[in-house]
């Protein structure tokens, strides 16, 4: 226990124990006491009954305990990154077969636009022989640790609805996100940090906004909390100007003593929950900045990610994601909105990969070397794919929902696997198709949940992440 932790420990002992026992226990009676004095796990410093986010058991033991989701918003081109199509190169500049595009709706282009060959070379990597684009050199190094899915498909082809679909299983706003369902099911292993942390690092924000990490109709504490990579990581984390730490502590202790007294008078356990929240807030004020300080990482680890302290980069966020899950955060999601290549496909993709490839691969390596990959799922992917047909001159692709690629690693995902296939032009997923609902069912399965049973009753109906469909993709399981 270092000095800082000691301080925290003392603080916890002080307020929690003394006041709950001495002041409140007397007046409260059996019900509150059961919660207040209940079992006291190592992770949960305060009594379990006061923590709506206390750790919970899943339906069955899951292989994964936590998730890091690298959300490549804007929709990366599968045809340039994961799904090599020599035929597309061959038929570059010709019109697609009519039967292929019959009834096809495109966002911007006339579907009868000419085919555009892949912009990059591909090569096979690792023992698994995973075929990857030349712009993903770092990912190639972990080819045997990841599973690539080349047969994803979705229902939406505009960004906002498709991102909402990918995150909440519905194109309609208002449903809980995957991260919210995860903490709803599993609770959190930290009470000093939010259970679900979100970063946004791209050139712009996401198209779906805060609803991408919303809690929908689940209780609000399942909302993702947006972290900043610079400044206060959590809003309102720092004391106001002129307030130092001893003053903050003295103030909080006074507040808690007054609230405890009130609890004794009024008897409403809600007051106990408030006391607890103020304690957690104080701890978060100390824990969060510490976790966010990547200068504490050894140089070689920072180099591995390409992280530089103080910069709001994707690389920093990946390193922070690892640090956060080490502290017990359940779900970290990094939104990197930069992948909407209607034009400037070659240059922008190359740039995006330079920004994200190294850190994404480093995350897998780093988790693996720490033994965390075993029970942490890493997901990389966007909301849909891109058309094999050109948009604009010869350097852009339109939105495309029928087929796209993602990769995943760890937490019970089968390593070294390339799952599924698309047709010759990468237009339709054809073999082992994986719908967004199937992906969600699989992820919940890895976390220990039957996706049809992880439900929340709302408006007279049991809602679930997978709506009324979704099948676990058993081929993806290790």
């Amino acid at each position: 226990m270092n000095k800082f932790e000691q301080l925290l420990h003392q603080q916890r002992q002080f307020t929690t124990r003394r006041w709950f026992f001495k002041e409140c226990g007397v007046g409260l009676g059996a019900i509150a006491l059961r919660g207040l004095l209940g079992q006291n796990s190592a992770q949960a410093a305060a009594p379990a009954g006061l923590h709506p986010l206390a750790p919970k058991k899943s339906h069955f033991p899951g292989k994964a305990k936590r998730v890091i989701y690298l959300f490549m918003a804007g929709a990366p081109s599968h045809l340039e990154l994961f799904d090599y199509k020599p035929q597309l190169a061959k038929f570059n500049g010709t019109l697609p077969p009519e039967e292929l595009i019959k009834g096809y709706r495109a966002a911007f282009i006339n579907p009868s636009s000419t085919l555009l060959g892949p912009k990059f070379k591909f090569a096979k990597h690792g023992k698994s022989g995973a075929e990857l684009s030349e712009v993903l050199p770092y990912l190639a190094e972990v080819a045997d640790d990841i599973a690539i899915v080349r047969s994803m498909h979705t229902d939406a082809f505009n960004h906002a609805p498709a991102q909402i679909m990918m995150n909440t299983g519905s194109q309609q706003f208002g449903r809980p996100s995957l991260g919210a369902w995860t903490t709803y099911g599993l609770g959190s292993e930290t009470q000093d940090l939010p259970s679900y942390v979100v970063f946004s690092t791209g050139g712009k924000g996401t198209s779906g906004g805060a609803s991408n990490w919303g809690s929908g109709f689940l209780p609000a504490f399942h909302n993702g909390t947006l972290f900043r990579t610079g400044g206060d990581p959590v809003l309102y984390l720092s004391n106001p100007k002129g307030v130092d730490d001893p003053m903050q502590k003295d103030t909080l202790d006074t507040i808690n003593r007054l609230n405890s007294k009130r609890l004794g008078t009024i008897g409403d356990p809600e007051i106990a929950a408030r006391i607890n929240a103020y304690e957690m807030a104080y701890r978060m004020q100390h824990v969060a900045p510490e976790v966010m300080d990547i200068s504490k990482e050894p140089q070689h680890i920072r180099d591995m990610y390409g992280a530089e302290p103080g910069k709001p980069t994707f690389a920093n966020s990946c390193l922070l994601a690892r640090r956060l899950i080490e502290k017990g955060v359940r779900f970290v999601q990094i939104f990197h909105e930069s992948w909407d290549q209607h034009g400037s496909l070659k240059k922008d993709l190359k740039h995006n990969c330079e920004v994200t490839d190294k850190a994404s691969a480093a995350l897998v390596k780093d988790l693996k070397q720490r033994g965390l990959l075993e029970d942490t799922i890493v997901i990389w992917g966007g909301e849909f794919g891109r058309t094999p047909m050109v948009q604009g001159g010869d350097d852009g692709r339109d939105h495309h929902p029928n087929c796209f690629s993602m990769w995943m690693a760890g937490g019970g995902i089968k390593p070294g696997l390339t799952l599924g296939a698309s047709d010759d032009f990468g237009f339709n997923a054809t073999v082992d198709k994986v719908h967004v609902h199937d992906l969600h069912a699989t992820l919940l399965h890895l976390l220990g949940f039957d996706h049809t049973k992880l439900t929340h009753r709302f408006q007279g109906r049991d809602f679930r992440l997978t709506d009324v469909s979704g099948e676990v993709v058993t081929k993806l399981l290790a």
Partner: protein
Amino acid sequence: MRLLTPFFTTRFLGFVAFSWVGCAMAAVDFTKDIQPIFVEHCYACHGEKKQEAGFRLDRKESFFKGGEYGPALVLGKSAESLLFLAVSGATDQVARMPKKSPALSSEEIGLLKAWIDEGAQWPDHGVAQAKSAKDHWAFKAPVKPVPRAVKGQKWVRGDVDRFILSDLEKEGLKPSPETDRVTLLRRVYLDLIGLPPTLEQTDAFLGDKSANAYPKVVEQLLKSPHYGERWARHWLDAARYADSDGFEKDKPRFIWAYRDWVVNALNRDLPYDAFITEQLAGDLLPGSTEDQKIATGFLRNSMVNEEGGVDPEQFRTDGLFDRMDAIGKSVLGITIQCAQCHTHKFDPISQEEYYRLFAFLNNDHESSRVYYPPSLQQSVSDLTRQMRDLEDGLRHVTPDWQERMKGWEDSVKQDQPDWKVARAFHQGEKGERFYDYVDGSIRASSYAPTYWTAEFWATNHAATVGAFRFEQLNDPNLPCGGPGRSIKGMAALSEFRAELEDLSTTNKIKVKFVNATADFSNAEKPLEAEFDDRSGGKARPYGPIQFAIDGKPSTAWGIDAGPGRRNVPRKAVFAAEKPITFTNDFRVRFFLEQNHGGFNSDDNQNHNLGRFRMSHTAGTNAVADPLPATVREILAIAPERRSTAQIAAVFSYWRTTVPSFKETNEKIEALWKTWPEGTPTMTLAMRKGAMPGDEARATHMFRRGDWLKPGKEVAFGTPAFLHPLPPDADGSRLAFARWLTDKKSPTTARVAVNRTWQQLFGTGLLETPEDFGTQSPPPYHPELLDWLACQLMEEGWSMKSLLRTLVTSATYRQSSRVTPALLARDPANRLLARGSRFRVEGEIVRDVALATSGLLNPVLGGRGVYPPAPEFLFLPPASYGPKVWTEEKGADRYRRSLYVFKFRSIPYPVLMNFDAPNGDFSCVRRGRSNTPLQALTSLNETVFMECAQQLAMQVLTHGGNTDDDRITYAFRRVLSRHPTPFERTELKSLLQRQSQRIAEGWINPAELATGKNEPAKLPPNTNPTQLAAYTVVSRALLNLDEAITKE
């Protein structure tokens, strides 16, 4: 929406709710798993109405009996059961079911298999439920019950109490004593106006020893303008009100006039039936007022997606689904949206019935109007009158004006060339989307790119082309009616170009324009701030029509005639150097270059063309008709058939052509220059078939709710299980609204009273205010619910009467103190043996701090305000695009939270942290969480800290001279009551400890007391250390649980 009651979040979650986690999976449940499958896939042919093959499975006995093919089941053996074989299609011997619709999902088949294998348990209540959906209590109109007799008459103040007490007595419980007067006062203040009482108000109440002191306060509060603000908040949640579009662009939108309408309507106690009717169909009421039109903003609160590449029709449809959902939750209390995709599984509403209701809402324009808030209405009517007087004066001094005007009319009647409309169609990529109308006009919609050249072509038969006419037309779907797409309905045309192509030779001719005329151009001016493209001051003027053919993309034709006159049709004529003659069919290609929008089209800075039409004529001498289009239309009407208003409109134009009227014309022109700038506000307008694009819209059912899969056409109508639509009702929104607010409606009044009950007591009598259907939990005190519903209607739907009845009841006045025994007996306080106690809503949390510190600016209404918020939130990558959030520096910084600008994609974090919904969809029940982020917010957020600082200032100015007095004063400002000795001691020792530290130099007192490193202006006889130390004490007080709790 968040559903958990405080009880649920803090107690239930920990102790009870998650006991299911980790349990072994239950066997297949008939009611939950199997019956819904039957309902969805089988009932249509094997249910109550039809029994194909003599088989019906909506009843237990007939199901187990089987049909013509024998029993459906072999218990425990799915592989031998006809039912399983049919739905799984496992064998060719049995026809696959369902015959005419898609097969069951593998999951559903799996459930059926497991159910059969487990022995096909079919509990008796499942049958009963399926049969009795139409007999469900909430689907029958309430009948006013007579309160039961009770023993504890002394406690009873009214009928509400009789219902509550009779249940308590049945349970062997006693009500709690009345709470102390200060607590009661603070409670009723927070409930009725959402603000705590001031010290003066508290003292006045405590000093009033009369028997009716409390009812008097209730009356005062019901008359307070803040009453409307507090109760509007609940309705605005239900109305999913926000100040932005949602989705990717999340553009700011103008609809605060609707928010103010709600506040106003509640303040004048507009009866609830009228309140609903005006919001659904205010524009259709006979002689509807401006106000009633603005009320239709309720329906317009749906989100709109204008990201590039969308089909606007898809999101219009989604918007209608959202409107249905909002009406379902907030007015009907029935989860009708389930029937969007399929017949409701539990409640007796079919998919067809859903689309019959949908038809009522499907025949509108998404319109907007210019709104003049009360502060401007006077000057608008003054100006209108002055102009009318001046024109009357002209008529007075010109006795022969009618003759002269007739002469003028004859001279202009035939002076227009023949224009041939070129029906043009959009070409190229689909950035902006275009609707084509039968009159050859085109309306731009959805994503509005800036720096954008829209390209169209039209095919024409042999002709000579000498000039083109470009008309800009009004359209109800454009901002303020257009003709353009800017916020004010304006557009700038940077360049107009045309190419002609002989279709037989493919010869192309680029038309050279030598002359351009327009009926109106604004004087040359630089673009307004909202159109700044951040190019660093590059000149981009707009003005004369010549700018559209000068070959310079940086200049544009502008049509902004200023407030009051801008939203009218405009036209330009572009004449070619020489006529071009085709002897074959030819094609015209139009290029409409639009470079005069702002940098950020995501922030409503577009300046694009709205609705327009192209025509051509043979001569090169054509010029734009100077007569306004409206005047030209009137001239086409036979003189004797013109209305007075039409004659006046012609006169208003004609007078401008008369040289001798110069002086008066100039006076009127000067008045126009002083016309105030209104604000746009979103409304609905019915499609009436008055013009192209105004045709009635047919409603089709959508298969699986998919707008791309229209099914059969349906007419308007209402669900059969509810009260009937009057035989003479038409398909208008007004008919719909009248039906919804009919006293025969079984749910409308119940939903209204239940929601009100929920706001006062924390949970509704029925826990699910949005769902009164068969899946809802049984209500507590069902008779009371019905009594209140009937009472509401009897009292003319007066919400204030309802509130008066509730807050003066003995039930409401109980102490909220809880004993362990009672907590164990009724943890959620559903029986109401005690008063309700819960944390106030997020907006009120913040308002309490503002009010008790003295910072609150109590002004009502107006645009949304921007209190301090971290800047990064409104910039990429936290926000999709940059958003305007100009922190208020003046008094607007401290307005009530109701007025905080609501961006859907970037919810204001202070309110979001305290469970305020962001308006993505209708919410009639907020959650009430209790989190560390809330603690951080009220401890550290800028305005909360400013409140602590201001409270300290108040304490030192007005709080007396001793620390005891001052602490008591501060305590009473925040909590109304006096501190206990323990509390005073605690606060005093905090004060002393921190004073000492400040004195020792650990803390910069100026920074603490002002947030800046500059000394504060001190009250007399005080020192900086005191101000700083009282800031600490104030901050602690504002963070007490009690400060943000309705006790």
